């Protein structure tokens, strides 16, 4: 550790959208779970006011990002994020979460600079950082888009106002000048009955969907009730399979070697334990 030559910064995958209720949190939780089979992962909830990561995973989080903010105000750069993370475990899979504040006032006062500092620190600790956001172009979200390796721009096809907002979103991202490689348009098929065709949406947005998640509302909502991500509880559903395909697209061949490395570390999260000196 600390050897600059060997220092490597983890991959940052952000879930973003300009339409609401498109399944950002659900997909982020599943992706964190799936990647965590083979790599170290931290899931960060940046829906600061009304975040659902702790709800969906039924975490008993003692600390939140608000505690990091407070500590950083006192300690400055020497503040360590690790003690404020909450571990999620299911079977052999484990990953860490930095949850959103319990209090709206705390959330309101979190500075973008603090979050940037947190993500940078997490990048030196984890292979993957998964970020859940809110559906708007805020200062914080723009800063996160800048820091991300990959942005999943999530879409849904239900009714015209949603399509309009997605169009505004993709146009704005283009204007902001992000590499097309970086922004991945992912369609989450909802159960909404609609007569709007997917091809029409692709034409309006001026690009094809990079990946399409199948409609499995029942499986998705059951996983919210149970507090266990779908890929962990029932890996055989179509949605779980499709989520895994998406993970493969992002982790590519790298996953294999990491997997070996990980296996060598014996127990699934002893690596994390070592990192945090526990």
């Amino acid at each position: 550790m600390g050897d600059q030559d060997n220092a490597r910064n983890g991959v940052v995958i952000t879930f973003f959208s300009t339409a609401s209720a498109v399944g950002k949190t659900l997909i982020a939780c599943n992706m964190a779970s799936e990647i965590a089979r083979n790599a170290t992962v931290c899931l960060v909830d940046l829906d600061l006011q009304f975040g659902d990561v702790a709800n969906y995973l039924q975490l008993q989080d003692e600390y939140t990002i608000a505690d990091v903010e407070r500590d950083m105000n006192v300690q400055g750069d020497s503040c360590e994020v690790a003690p404020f993370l909450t571990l999620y475990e299911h079977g052999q899979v484990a990953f860490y979460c930095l949850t959103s504040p319990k209090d709206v006032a705390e959330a309101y006062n979190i500075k973008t600079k603090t979050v940037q500092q947190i993500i940078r620190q997490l990048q030196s600790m984890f292979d993957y950082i998964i970020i859940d956001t809110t559906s708007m172009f805020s200062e914080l979200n723009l800063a996160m888009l800048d820091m991300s390796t990959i942005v999943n721009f999530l879409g849904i096809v239900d009714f015209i106002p949603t399509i309009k907002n997605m169009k505004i979103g993709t146009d704005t991202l283009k204007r902001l000048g992000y590499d097309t490689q970086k922004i991945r348009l992912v369609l989450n098929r909802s159960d909404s009955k609609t007569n709007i065709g997917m091809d029409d949406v692709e034409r309006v947005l001026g690009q094809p969907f990079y990946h399409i998640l199948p409609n499995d509302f029942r499986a998705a909502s059951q996983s919210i009730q149970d507090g266990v991500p779908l890929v962990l509880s029932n890996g055989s559903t179509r949605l779980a399979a499709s989520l895994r395909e998406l993970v493969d697209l992002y982790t590519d061949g790298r996953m294999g070697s990491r997997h070996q490395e990980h296996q060598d570390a014996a127990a699934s999260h002893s690596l994390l334990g070592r990192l945090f000196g526990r």
Partner: protein
Amino acid sequence: MAYRIMLVENDRLLLEQIANVISSTDGFELVARYQTVSDALGQGSVFHPNIIMLDVDHPRAFAAIGTFHANYPETVIICMGEEWQADRATHCVRSGASGYIVRPSTTQELKESVETYAKSGMEFASETMAFFSAKGKSGKSTLIANLALALGRRSGEQVGIIDADLQFGDMTVFFSLEPSMTIYEAVRDIKYLSPVTLKPYFTPVNDNVHVLCGTRTPNLIDRISIEGFESLLEMAQSLFRYVLIDIPPGFNPTSIAAVEKAKSTYVVTMLNGAYEIQHAQRALEVMNSLDNHEERVHTIFTRVQSTDIAARHQLETELGYPVAAMIPNEYLTVSKAANDGRMAVDIEPDSPLTRSVNKLAETIMGKKHIRWAKP
């Protein structure tokens, strides 16, 4: 009807200018003009004016509005001043005037000002309502659009929608509007506007309902000052009997300003089987710090499966707060309507959804207290 105007203006030069504007405007006749209040009060009635335009920059005139109203009970009094001042306008209307305007300098301004207030009078008991949601997809924009139509139709009054969901406002789509002006221009120009000159920034949907549309691109959010937005909300109150404000989800400078300025706030939540009730509770906790929050803050649930009393009771118990309205789930009607640029209350006038929106409109019109029987 021809307007027979009596002009009372203390400034000699302005008297001349405005008299010229009146004389050159079609449908307007200048029947008398005075520089002093005493002359106007003593002699004007000989000419049977139906409109009095009164310069209230002069303190004597400002104090005499009530006397004019008593002496000319059938005549519309329109007060004039150098610039728009909301508190002054309120004082004028309370003293018996129909409106307060910035002195007109063109025939068009004169026409618009007089026609606006001679017909319906200036609002000073306006109901402003902010519609808040913790997260997006609450059904609030759909509700606002349908509720505005219902309020306009049932009350016959003027209804304004302000689309302040600055990045992703949906009102243009809901009503298929092609606005020439938006909230961005209105806030930018607000310092130079009065209610009469603000009105053209709104795009009409029908005779009763007018929409101030949202920004065209999301980056304009940075150029909408909160101070300007607050002045806009104040000014809109003198134009419309009901003002409905659509705000971005969550707590942000825009939504906080709207909630603070509005007479009432509706926390709108769509039940989707996740943690929506907890989010509504968290929002309500924050709003506890508002003065009279129990009277000002109400809750509405949309896309509800069952709207009967038992369901309401259960929801209220879980929430720990009264529920003002439950809007039933009619996803297909609503989305089809929105796709076609029409409204559910129009295409399905007898549906449970329309009935529940109408009921909410009645409650707002009757200003009945929404009481909560503690379970």
